């Protein structure tokens, strides 16, 4: 129970050149196929043993969702096979099938029935579901008055009311508040310990490294790599960094981090890479890690004066730290068109866990308000994870110690 075996799995969507082509293919006997096949996944092979925790990573469009759909059985493979033993619960569909006009309790029973449990089962599980969701009297209110977090709580509680043999976890889980996120992850971990196989899909590298025994990297519809989460993550980072800046911008855009670029364009940042101290590109950063940002600037006009500034912001856009070459007295003068300048910024990532972005500014004088050549928001986005340090909260890492004396 709880094994997944994927053999030579492939999925292609049919693409018909015209709407009538499908009709022709259906109706004309012995007609040749009139569709092109668009392969989204090809030649996948892997085995998951009971109780294993697997992370599936990859950029948007790499085929992660399609793979999950085939494992849960909603979509049929075009080639190969998926063999699953045991009951699957997928947290992809949290709140799916909830009807807004019915109470939480009614919806919970329906949702359970959709998962194949009987109404009696659900009634006996109900007290436990209520206790886990902690939504109080709202359980007997229509779901339309719920906040999205409350819906999520109820849906998670229903989906995991019985320990499944295989649990598929998607980003959907990041909806609830921190308290519930922790509570739900505790339950997921506890189920895992009891033998439930986990399949976690995430862009959140922290989650993958924190829970998984193994990671599978999907890229362009096939398995680019599988192995320990650390190695796969490193490879993934390099894969992202390898791309030229234009593509990286696109990647950021898909994460919802749209770069905002403004200014006269008389000088531009043409390349910017976040690297570790050896100059290797990174995207996930350990707390306290020594980092450098390599920036290349080109002048597209003759400039009397050039100041370069950068700013690290947290995920809410609050500046954490920023400075520029005016303050550090490294201002450059009299640049000619086409001249390039390389800046290397070195700093320690004394930051708390979370996502951060770096913005660049090119201007004359003390700040960009007088004349701005370029202002580039969210040029680099990176994640900080706690590795090798005790857990802490907050935006900053302050090396500290606690002295305890017991009488």
């Amino acid at each position, binding site marked *: 129970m709880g094994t997944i075996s994927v053999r030579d799995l492939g999925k292609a969507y049919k693409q018909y050149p015209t709407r009538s082509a499908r009709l022709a293919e259906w109706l004309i006997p012995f007609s040749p196929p009139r569709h092109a096949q668009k392969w989204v996944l090809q030649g996948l092979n892997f085995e998951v043993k009971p109780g294993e925790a697997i992370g599936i990573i990859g950029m948007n469009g790499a085929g992660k969702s399609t793979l999950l759909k085939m494992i*849960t059985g909603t979509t*049929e493979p075009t080639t190969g096979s998926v063999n699953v033993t045991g009951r699957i619960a*997928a947290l992809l569909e949290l709140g799916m*099938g909830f*009807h807004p006009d*019915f109470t939480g309790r009614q919806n919970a029973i329906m949702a359970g029935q959709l998962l194949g449990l009987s109404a009696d089962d659900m009634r006996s599980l109900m007290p436990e579901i209520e206790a886990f969701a902690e939504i109080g009297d709202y359980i007997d209110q229509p779901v339309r008055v719920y906040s999205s977090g409350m819906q999520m709580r109820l849906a998670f509680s229903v989906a995991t009311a019985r320990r499944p043999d295989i649990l598929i976890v998607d980003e959907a889980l990041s909806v609830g508040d921190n308290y519930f996120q922790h509570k739900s992850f505790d339950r997921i971990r506890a189920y895992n310990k009891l033998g439930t196989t986990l399949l976690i899909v995430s862009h959140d590298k922290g989650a993958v490294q924190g829970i998984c025994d193994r990671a599978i990297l999907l890229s362009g519809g096939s398995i680019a790599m599988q192995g320990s989460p650390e190695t796969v993550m490193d490879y993934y980072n390099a894969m992202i960094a390898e791309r030229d800046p234009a593509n990286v911008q696109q990647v950021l855009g898909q994460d919802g981090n749209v770069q905002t670029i403004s200014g006269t364009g008389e000088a531009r940042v043409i390349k910017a890479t976040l690297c570790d101290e050896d100059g290797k590109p990174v995207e996930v950063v350990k707390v306290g890690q020594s980092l450098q940002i390599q920036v290349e600037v080109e002048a597209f006009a003759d400039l009397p004066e050039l100041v370069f500034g950068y700013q690290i912001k947290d995920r809410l856009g609050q500046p954490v730290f920023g400075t520029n070459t005016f303050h550090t007295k490294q201002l450059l003068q009299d640049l000619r068109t086409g001249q390039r300048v390389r800046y290397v910024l070195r700093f320690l990532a004394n930051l708390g866990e979370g996502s951060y972005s770096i913005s660049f500014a090119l201007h004359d004088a003390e700040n960009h308000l007088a004349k701005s050549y370029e202002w580039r928001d969210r040029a680099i986005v990176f994640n900080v994870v706690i590795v090798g340090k005790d857990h802490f909260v907050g935006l900053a890492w302050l090396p500290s110690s606690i002295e305890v004396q017991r009488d």
Partner: protein
Amino acid sequence: MGILKTFWGFRGFILGSVQREFQANYKNSLLGAAWTVIRPLVMIIVYTVVFSQIMRSKLPGVESEFAYSIYLCAGVLTWSFFSEAVTRGQNVFIENANLLKKINFPRMCLPIIALTNALVNFLIIFALFTVFLLVTGAFPGKIFLALIPVLAIQVLLSAGLGLTLGVLNVFFRDVGQLSAIVLQFWFWATPIVYPINILPPFFQQLLSHNPMTHLMAAYQQILVNGQRPDWMSLWPITLIAVVLCITGARLFSKHAGEMVDEL
């Protein structure tokens, strides 16, 4: 056998969904389930007034004050059931696209839920109509039971047609649009509002090729005249119903997987 077992396992879901869909329609209205009755009632009143009073049309050979109303109800109520079942069936996969894409459950549950819902609505209205028959003394007696096989044929037909159109509609959305028009046209091409013998012989001949004509005639024969329907005339439509059911089931099993990709 396996498939029946699956449905049995999901009976809670099927019954729950039927109940829920029924309640959902009326949950936030003051009159509640009364709306199930009000709509067809108004339609019948309109037809009765327009055709029976204004047009002064009478049913040949039947002398009863309510004869035309009963004739009308026999056709309109059953036709509404047919058209509701077909319309729901053809939209059922599209409406539940999200569910189909995200959750693995027996997909055949969905058309069953749709059909059962239409059946429940019909039975409520028809029960009221039966009460009306009893009150006005127009109840046809034991022959009333002959409605059961006729209804069974209709349910089979609706299921087959609804499922066939439902699968096709996923791939060719024209089907949904077209069938609404065809149903409208079909309604008027079937003697429901008017009796067939007011038509010129040529059209009478033409309409006798419409299989629904015989089905509706069976209802009218039982409810208006209190006589056994012409069972032999129902063979073609029964055959069509069976063929449609097989077609629908084959289309479904062949394209169910592809359907999810298309939604």
